[in-house]
């Protein structure tokens, strides 16, 4: 993929490239901070058929999502190796989960799954390396670490007991 860059004096910078499907994407970074994404169905088209305007913050958020910072649907080999040994996941605790309303110690999280809870996000609050006596509440988002099997196992605990989402545990992982 070849990205062409150009200066737009007084406005900002322009990046353009054609996707594998032959569509033309142009990204403009305005000096004022906002970004614009233009989409052309083919390179010869006069008018874009989509213009997306993003604030600085929105653009950065979108950027991290596209970069796959939190969630890698198709990881490359190197990433795959890393992911096999260490994964950090964010998981939401469903109300019907058997973890809900119990302390970490009571649930024997480490013993049954092998994964470790390294943080709990509760509303606006973030609890870093929580105590084993911390009570997990429904709606909490757990930050967990472990290898693939261990995190999968904990994920299924969090969303278990027949909730529709539990059929596909990958979906229940919160993508943030």
């Amino acid at each position, binding site marked *: 993929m070849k990205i062409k860059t*150009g*200066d*737009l*004096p*007084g*406005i900002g910078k*322009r990046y*353009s490239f*054609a996707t594998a499907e032959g569509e033309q994407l*142009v990204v*403009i970074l305005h*000096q004022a901070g906002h970004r*614009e994404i*233009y989409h*052309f169905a083919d*390179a*010869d088209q*006069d*008018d*874009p058929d989509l*213009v997306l305007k993003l604030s600085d913050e929105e653009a950065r958020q979108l950027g991290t999502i596209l970069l796959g910072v939190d969630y890698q649907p198709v990881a490359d080999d190197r990433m795959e190796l890393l992911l096999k040994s260490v994964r950090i996941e964010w998981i939401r605790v469903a109300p019907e989960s058997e973890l809900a309303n119990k302390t970490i110690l009571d649930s024997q999280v480490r013993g049954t799954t092998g994964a470790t809870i390294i943080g709990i996000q509760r509303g606006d609050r973030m609890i870093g390396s929580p105590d084993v006596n911390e009570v997990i509440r429904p709606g909490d988002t757990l930050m967990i670490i472990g290898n693939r099997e261990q995190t999968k196992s904990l994920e299924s605990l969090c969303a278990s007991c027949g909730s529709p989402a539990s059929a596909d545990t990958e979906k229940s992982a919160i993508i943030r």
Partner: protein
Amino acid sequence: MENIPFLLLGGLMLGGFFAVSFASWKFRLPSVLVYIILGIAAASLFHHADWIHITAEIGIVLLFFILGLEFPLARMVTVSKRIWPAGALDVGLNLGGAMGVALLFGLDLIAALTVGSIAYATSSSISAKLLDEHKRLANPEAEFILSLLIFEDLVAPVLVSFLAGVRAGDQVSAAFMGVLFGKILALTAGAVLIGLYGFRRLSHFVAKCLQHDFMPMLAVGLALGYAGLAVALGLSEILGAFLAGVMLSETGRSSELEHLLLPLRDLTLPFFFFWFGTTIQFGEGLPLVSLLGVLVLLAVVGKIVTAYAGGRWFGLNRKVALRAGFSMVQRGEFSAIIAGLASAQLRVFSGAYILATAVIGVFLFDRAPALAGWIHRRRPPPGADPSGLKNPEPPAAAP
């Protein structure tokens, strides 16, 4: 008008500017034009308001200062390298052409040069706004159009300085011209030296102190000071302001400094266009109507040819270059600045010229893609696929 307290008048004027500016944004009209028209309408009320002129002058200084901020020397060289053939054609055709026509109509050399300068530059503010509003910033011609505008912005301060110098002196002799050029060179060299050996070392200081209340003072002080120095030398404040911006851009903190000053510019600049409007009085009728007609025609044809040919040299394909051609007719703030230096008669003349070309320009800009497509289909380039899907130019070639 004298009985109204200054504060009340200032408040009313800014309120009025807000109202017309908001309306022009809603109706997609160039706000520059709207301010000028407001000025023309209110001309009889503002005969001796010196403070408007002073505010206007500060606005112009800040406009060119901020323009200069975007041009560290290295960047100026890069842009100029790519655009100079188009830029030279622009000067020859639009400045030279209009000057020639004015001479043919019997104007003297200085008046003809003034007319040429008024006719020369496309409005940066109107063009940039139109590109953004019509969602054409992503198109390949945007880079070319903006670069050519920048080239004009580089020529403009020198041109204005030259005119200001000539106007102040009575005799135009070879020696006088030599001294004038010498002064322009000295002022420029001074700015380059201070920029390279002074401000380049201050990058850290500027970055560290940006949020302090004394930074705007440094920036505006430098802008007004160097602009004033230029005036003291008998040159234009515009050149001084632009060079002050170039100087400070060497700190590498242009965009942050720009953000500090933009509100100040936005407050003061409308006063310039308003003031310009108040100096236009159509009472004695429009002078030199036939010359005006010819020049407006030349303005349209000259810019279309310049932008088309220049665009081709820049590497645009035919259709895109055509689109660029129809997008640069509008004149605006630069013509108003030149006209501000001119005699009263020429001012009325240029007021009409700006209004006419701006309206035609906005209209053509709106139709540019359609017009370019139409011409492209009717007269396909020799040897090319008439469907217009294939372009002979390498930059646009399909993979």
